[in-house]
């Protein structure tokens, strides 16, 4: 094992992964990461992950989209080039609400999509985990738990023994040097 390598334990079911995380946290490890082929209910709670900031971004960009679209329409139709269209008032605000609504949704959806990618540091074509043996099954049918070598409790030998005590299918190393 090279220095700076982390340990990765492979499990067959989501239930085993959740149990393993509980025991790993009781053992005092904090720099742990889990990989699963689907959104396992309760996984974030087990890992005690902070709430996603995404909803706030979406709210802000949604409001920005709607307000800017309304102001743009009002400015263009009532100030910049007022035109008598069918005898309607220049500032015919009910007509402006639909495009404002569409832009609210557009701003929010763009913020949601790109915010999701940004918060996860994606797109990122390469990550050291991709070199770990069998990790291609994290997107198919296996569940993984990684204890990072940055963890203050981390010790190459005892951490490995600890992970093996959790009854995984295999424990492999992830070489962080490659990145």
């Amino acid at each position: 094992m090279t220095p700076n390598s982390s340990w990765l334990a492979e499990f067959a079911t989501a239930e085993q992964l959740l149990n393993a995380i509980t025991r790993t946290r009781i053992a005092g490890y904090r720099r742990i990461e889990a990989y699963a082929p689907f959104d396992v209910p309760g996984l974030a709670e087990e890992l005690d992950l902070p709430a996603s900031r995404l909803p706030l971004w979406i709210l802000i960009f949604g409001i920005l989209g709607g307000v800017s679209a309304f102001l743009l329409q009002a400015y263009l139709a009532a100030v910049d080039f007022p035109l008598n269209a069918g005898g309607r008032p220049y500032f015919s605000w009910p007509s402006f609400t639909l495009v404002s609504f569409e832009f609210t949704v557009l701003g929010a959806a763009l913020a949601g999509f790109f915010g999701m990618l940004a918060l996860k540091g994606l797109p990122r074509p390469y990550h050291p985990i991709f070199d770990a043996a069998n990790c291609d099954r994290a997107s198919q049918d296996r569940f993984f738990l990684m204890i990072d070598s940055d963890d203050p409790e981390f010790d190459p030998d005892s951490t490995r023994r600890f992970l093996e005590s959790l009854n995984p299918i295999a424990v492999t190393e992830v070489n962080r040097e490659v990145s």
Partner: protein
Amino acid sequence: MSRNIDEHPENETVLHADQDYASISREISDIVLRPAGRGWWLGFGLSGLGVLIFFAAAVYLFYAGVGIWGVNTTVVWGFAIINYVWWIGIGNAGTLISAMLYLARQPWRTSINRFAEAMTIFAASIAGLFPILHLGRPYLFYWLAPYPSTMGVWPQFRSPLVWDMFAILTYIIVSVLFWYTGLIPDLATLRDRARSRAAQLVYGALALGWRGSAAHWRHYERAYLILAALAVPLVVSVHSVVGYDFATTLMPGWRSTLFAPYFVVGAMFSGFAMVIVITIALRAAFKLHAFVTPRHLDAMAKILLAASLIMGYAYGMEVFMAWYGTDADEWRQTVTTATGPYAPAYWGMLFCNIVVPQLCWSARIRRNIPALLIIAILVNVGMWLERYVIVVNILSHGFVPSQFRQYFPTVWDWATMLGSFALFLWFFFLFVRFVPMVPMHEVRRLAHSLGERS
């Protein structure tokens, strides 16, 4: 209780019991990763020929002008707008199904949402072509966008046709984002399962480095939930705006406050019918019997029935308000619709949309695949007739009797319309070839909630 509990629809599974995580990933991704069969090449080639017809019709239209269509000075909107509303209606349902059923936590949504959303994107893109094609000067369509031109003029934001452009553009962008968000974990599965270098690179690039870590899933789940919550009001607004194209005019038969909700329900109705057709076709062609069970078809048929009842209410209310109100033109318009030259379309519409779906009250018919397929196709025909009745029939006898005129579609109208069907099929053939048609990660989650299967 005479019925066996296993046969009771509510207890029926939405996923076959012999599927585990590995088999779900294998069966669905192998459809994409193995070489295409002869049937695929045949369908792709034939629909490709239809696409050529569509482009030929469009090129001749750009060359010769909009007069090659059957529109005249009275019936100024013909097949182009009928098809536009029909396609956007179909396009609305995919997102509605996917997002609304996601918010309602319906487990049977899982297997069908990917191709319902694909249907949305293709249908909405095709719908978006028609408003441009039917312009007299299609090369100036960009004048609909507010950009600082040297002329200093701006689009007229009081027109529903301008709202339309923003609604459709937003709708296509948001649907694509919603669809792609749902795809990212599945593209990672394809990246990891692909054996050819090219497929690994392409799917690896498209998966954006998805690792399936708990932190990924946390943001992902938030993003997907909020996109779903945004998509539902967006769909309602998009088809309401389509309804306003008609409802904000002064035309008797169009100036109805009912149009926005009535169009939205009509969109859901025709879209669900189209999803049933696509589900039945893909289930048979790709042997998806483990993922699409009779329970799915049963649930979709029930929604079709519910939508049909609301449509029936709307048709009834249109006639009732015309009779109850004091507007002579409104009543004359209603009587002419039912008895005039377009009466066959009107009665055909009522038959296909109101009478035929009543068969879905029977559980036997809901589970009978050929019967359900015929009902779904007839609903799509009926919904096309509905738009025909609304556009052509209403325009042909407006206020001034000297202006009454009929509409006769030309061969170019038909070529554009049939070509648009081919374009839709062509897109769909590409979709089933390169994209997993069932969301694998969601089916795995479903398998997990139905009892852990590894």
